[in-house]
């Protein structure tokens, strides 16, 4: 059966790559997090809520967030040209949109939160990893929020629906469905789909990704608790 199928890196169809999360790694940032998923290495810094120097972005009745997703030139096999491009602008936007529903910024009008996501090494699924790390960093910064947003992807490789695509599977596979959700209520805050899926496959991919999100969410909580439990 397909559940016995072994993937290119030896995982089962519903198995995540090994994950390591650490909260509060930077001294000068208000909140920070470091995350490793498989071959991904991501560092997130959160500054704020702080007084904004960009007047036109401010809202008189609530706080605003800004996200910058950036890949280091050495993060991929071929050197990436540094600076923002179409892809990173898109991911910056969808990350902000995925995090915003969870944040409670009514008590911080006219303020701004800056989130910097730096991809140090990339190996597929950086947008979901970025969202996961960013919400840990937001909790570390003490920003009030309804839930800790978590991201995870599912996709279709060799006509099978599988969880958490690696770089190889992402390139060779037929579809990629990254989602982000709030695990307590099950609300989905990000849903993208790239490739061809039948209706059943799509529903299955979402279920699989949501289950993956719940698993990652437990690791997020563990990482946050660990930071203060040892002291």
């Amino acid at each position, binding site marked *: 059966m397909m559940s016995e199928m072994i993937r290119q890196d030896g995982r089962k169809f519903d198995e995540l790559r090994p994950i390591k999360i650490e909260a509060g790694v930077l001294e000068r940032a208000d909140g920070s997090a470091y995350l490793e998923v498989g071959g991904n290495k991501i560092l997130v810094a959160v500054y704020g809520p702080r007084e904004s120097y960009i007047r036109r972005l401010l809202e008189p009745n609530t706080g605003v967030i800004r996200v910058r997703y950036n890949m280091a030139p050495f993060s991929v096999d071929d050197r990436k040209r540094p600076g923002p491009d179409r892809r990173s602008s898109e991911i910056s936007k969808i990350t902000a949109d995925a995090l915003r529903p969870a944040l409670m910024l009514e008590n911080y009008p006219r303020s701004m939160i800056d989130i910097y996501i730096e991809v140090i090494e990339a190996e597929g699924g950086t947008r979901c990893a970025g969202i996961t790390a960013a919400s840990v960093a937001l909790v570390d910064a003490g920003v009030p929020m309804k839930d800790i947003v978590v991201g995870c992807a599912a996709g279709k490789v060799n006509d099978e629906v599988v969880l958490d695509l690696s770089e190889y599977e992402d390139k060779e596979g037929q579809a990629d469905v990254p989602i982000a959700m709030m695990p*307590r209520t099950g609300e989905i805050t990000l849903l993208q789909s790239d490739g061809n899926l039948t209706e059943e496959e799509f529903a299955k991919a979402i279920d699989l990704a949501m289950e993956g999100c719940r698993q990652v969410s437990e690791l997020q909580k563990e990482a946050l608790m660990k930071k203060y439990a040892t002291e």
Partner: protein
Amino acid sequence: MIYVENKDLVIPGQVLSDDEYYSGRGTFKENGKVCSSLMGLVSLRNKKIRVIPLKSKYVPKKGDVVIGKINDVRFSMWDVDINSPYSGILPAFEVFGREKKELNKVYDVGDVLFLRVVDVDEIKKAKLGLKGRGMGKFKGGIIVDIAPTKVPRLIGKKGSMINMIKDKTKCKIVVGQNGLVWVKGDEDMEQLTKDVIHLIEAEAHTSGLTNKIKNKLYLAIDGELPPEEVPEENEEEEEFVLEKPKLQNFKEELEQEEREAQEKEAEEIKKEKEDKPNIAEVIEEFKRKNKKDTTLSYGDNSNNSFILNNKQ
């Protein structure tokens, strides 16, 4: 049905209880359940659940005393950075009254002041003032930065923690509610005080902290542990919760003192009135004298949590 205990560490989105509890600060209600919105410690009182955050930014509140740094000098006010998402303004009127003076000759960019939040408007702009004794510019010393939520812990029950540090290091210490602490003393002692304050900040959520700090201070200064005392278990227990009422008491004390001082002054003025016929002159002189006196000294107020006696 409640899912947590007092002083439990919780994270955002964690369900704390069902409907029969009230949602306090740091929590929100959704579908009849009280959930935490912050990472922090649970505080249960009278069926009300609050979460006291481990980290948070200072949001100005009317009546708070804060430490601020002058950022900009404008035509009729100073811009003050009060370690918050919102900057404060110190109007010239609050300092000079009706008098006209050049602002940058009194306080210039980079000066550090001890201020009171006079008013906060709807868009959270904080209006600051210098009314109250001890308010004014700091000369020398260092500034230590801690999380505003840990300020009550640094002060301790009735100022126990801060007074102990003051006694031991012989430093002058002023704590602002925005999380800035001003320390002045010997260079070594300043450094030690800074380390101790950071230690308190890092371990604010653990119990038995006062004794731990005490031991550390005695070891660092005398090279030996403090004499044994009868342990006061109860006090330690209560002290654990990070709360604010101590500051409230302190404020009342301060106001009381202020009132007394003013009465005294009025009496003195009356007396001098009898001696000298030129009243206006006398009052002028008093005002001037007063201004000098109030820059930083608090008289002998040993119970004072914010300011150490400056007249040593």
